[in-house]
């Protein structure tokens, strides 16, 4: 739709007058601003080591591996997080779950996350079908060697134990059961997320996500 004429504001260059040519009023106004800041000093500085910052709830810090209600690791070693990870910092070795864990096929024999490679994008958390990996509010992570920054399964579970009762790091899904993705019996049949009507342009698409008619067959196939 073209922009309506009434929505267009035509901006003219402001008139350049005598006082603008002498610079002085502009300099005086600027000086007033800076002097105001000096005299009415309201610093926004946080005295960091003494005063910790108040982070937003969605802050993405160090990872943790959640436990279920029996204290077992929730992860089912599906590799979705390692696949989603753009920094390629998650290494999982899957093993068949012990027979006394009937609710899953696999579990992570090793789960190593390189906190130095991680870019803290949170895509592992989004990818996880059973809500096993989550990012916490821990931001001040230090170590004396690179090896110490490779967090294995036990270390990540420790982070969970440390942070699970912190109000800033609630376990984001109901504790206990695995997430909905593990409930194979109730999974909905695979289908489009939204119904497409016949008259919609996308109904003619050659493939999902393309709008418009399928292009004429260029290769004569």
């Amino acid at each position, binding site marked *: 739709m073209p922009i309506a*004429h*009434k929505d267009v504001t035509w901006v003219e260059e402001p008139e*350049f007058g*005598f006082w603008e*040519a002498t610079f002085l009023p502009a*300099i005086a106004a600027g000086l007033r601003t*800076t002097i105001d*800041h000096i005299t009415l000093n309201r610093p926004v500085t946080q005295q960091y080591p003494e005063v910790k910052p108040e982070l937003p709830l969605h802050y993405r810090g160090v990872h943790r591996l959640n436990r279920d209600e029996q204290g077992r690791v929730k992860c089912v070693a599906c590799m979705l997080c390692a696949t989603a990870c753009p920094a390629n910092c998650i290494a999982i070795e899957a093993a068949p779950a012990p027979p006394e864990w009937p609710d899953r096929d696999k579990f992570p024999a090793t789960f190593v996350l390189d906190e130095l490679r991680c870019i803290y994008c949170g895509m592992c958390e989004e990818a996880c079908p059973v809500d096993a990996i989550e990012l916490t509010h821990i931001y001040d992570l230090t170590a004396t060697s690179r090896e110490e920054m490779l967090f294995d399964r036990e270390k990540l579970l420790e982070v969970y134990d440390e942070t699970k009762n912190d109000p800033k790091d609630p376990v984001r899904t109901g504790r206990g059961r695995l997430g909905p993705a593990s409930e194979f019996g109730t999974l909905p049949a695979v289908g489009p997320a939204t119904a497409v009507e016949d008259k919609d342009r996308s109904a003619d698409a050659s493939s999902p996500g393309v709008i418009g008619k399928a292009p004429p067959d260029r290769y004569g196939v």
Partner: protein
Amino acid sequence: MSELIQTLVTIGITMGAILGGCMYLILVERKISARMQDRIGPNRVGPWGLLQPVADAVKIFLKEDPSPAHVDKFLYRVAPMISVFTTLLAFAVVPFGPVGQAPSFMRFIIAPHIDVGIVFIFAITSLAVYGVILGGWASNNKYSMLGSLRASAQVVSYEIPLGMSVLGVALLAGTLNLEQILAQQAEGGIWKWNFWYQPLACLIFFTSAMAESNRLPFDLPECEQELVGGYHTEYGGLRFVMFFLGEYVHVVTVSFLISILFFGGWYFPWIATVDSAYPGEWLVKIGVLLSKVGAVIIFMMLIRWTIPRFRFDQLMGLAWKVLIPLSMANVVIVMTVLQFGWNRWWLLAASIGLFLMAGVMGVNAKRAEIRRRPRASRPAAWTT
């Protein structure tokens, strides 16, 4: 012999005071700029960060002194020394107290009775640009060289209005000797301060002095967005600090000059006059002078964080199209008034008149430029 000892003591005291003063001026500047930007500033080392300069100095002296492989080693090392040496040397003829009343072990000026004082200062401080040029050239780096080219163009351009604006004061005083210029203002009282007769020259001098010492808004030679670090891109540690110190000492010298040339030096009505005779009066006079200098420096810092940086062509335009013609006209007016023996207060009126004229001409030139500017025509349909 006693003369020599006197001189050495004076040099020692002056250098110590300037270098220590510069360190604390840097702290003051950091604090002021922090407050302007709603921050706190250095507050970790000592109470209110008062020991920060000491910590900085220790850090700088302990720093490694690397020099890149691709530089001209000799010039690379000499350049910062030239920069700091020339600016410190310029201070030799600046009286920093009531010259006649110094205690016996020192003087209030390192080199007294130099009749070409002002010329000496300008000659020496303009040598400082050699440090910048050589530093940029020896660094063998495009950014450094562009920075040093800019610096040389800028300093050479602003030398002219700087010298011309002082010429008026020198003509009025009839001497180039800073001690005598100061003494004349002190004897005449507050209404003999050159500021009242040469306000325009004072403004021009202040502006060109800021440009000379590469302070914002004229710090094009080290403009970070375009030139990384400018001429000192390749410098680090103590060598960078020498450049930095050179600029800061320049600021101090220029502030002394402004206080002495235009604001009566150590003179202040009632508390520090020629006739005042009470114990420790020389201390008060030094205090008066230093507070004037401090006020000028603080004002420079305020300006620094208030005005954004000029574009390079604007900078050159300001020097060649505005400041140089104005300072020339100012000198002509001073000569006319002196020649015909008119009342000196006419100079104040003439200065204001010149300033207004410059404003009118500036606005006309700008409007003409706006008229000539190619512009999109407004579509007829959009006029409603």
